[in-house]
């Protein structure tokens, strides 16, 4: 179980960031996407290896009109 973009998501501990992104239909080379886990940036190069702990707070962000 993790918290994905503010909502509980049924992702078991140990899965990688890449797996989570796949659930959002985002490929590892998706343009304009960035990921933070528990308040730290996870660089794209680590998406495939970074394993999530239980209750990890994952933010998957992208470009939005603004400013």
């Amino acid at each position: 179980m993790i918290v994905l973009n503010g909502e509980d998501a049924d992702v078991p501990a140990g899965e990688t960031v890449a797996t989570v992104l796949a659930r959002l239909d985002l490929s590892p080379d998706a343009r304009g996407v960035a990921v933070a886990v528990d308040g730290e940036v996870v660089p794209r190069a680590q998406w495939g290896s970074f394993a999530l702990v239980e209750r990890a707070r994952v933010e998957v962000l992208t470009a939005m009109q603004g400013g």
Partner: protein
Amino acid sequence: MAVARETGEELTIAGRTLRSRLLLGTGGFPSLAVMAEAIAASGSELVTVALRRVDPQARGSLIDVLAEAGVELLPNTAGCFTARDAVLTARLAREAFQTDWIKLEVIGDEATLMPDAPELLRAAEELVADGFVVLPYTTDDPVLARRLADLGCAAVMPLGSPIGSGMGIRNPYNLALIREAVAVPVVLDAGVGTASDVALAMELGCDAVMAASAISRAQDPVRMARAMRAAVEAGRLAAGAGRIPRRTYATASTPEEGLADFGVD
């Protein structure tokens, strides 16, 4: 008061040369199509984007549209109320958009969306140290602007009035003081409502102007984009043309010498 310092027509920020002195915000447009048309009409080469949570439903083509428009992205940290959130957002933006440029916003008040000076300084210092090209959204306080420049910010972006208020430049004196206080480019950010506001900003010595809601929420955004483009040019030209002084009384534009005398009826 002040005249624009550079005589060249191009603006250089952190080594990047821009032919257009108009920065655009991308929020508030009725559609991406109108946004794209307005960007083209404005001539802008640098537009802001925000970072928000991926929406699985409405995955937008914003990035694609902007890429096609041929503009550079300037990610912002809109919505951040602490230095920590702003710094983290900047780092995520760097990941997402492969750019070191960041429009740094650290907000201190929900009602006015005005910046929070100490948090802003803290975030700017950390991001400059981390190699970012920092363009901070700041108040019209010349001392704060100078501190930001001294910290290594690539430009300063003082507000004219609250974001989206359309109140124009509430305190032209302070903008002129900022122009004198810093050597980096001054980009008016926030408050612009219409073309004359933009022309005034340039006349006060600003090097560029950022417009967001003034264009995107106008009834005809594309026409307003054209207006703003012309206004930047008008103000820039006027700033360098050496305007006449203000006088309380009149100065005849037609000489009296040689005036006919038709006698009295």
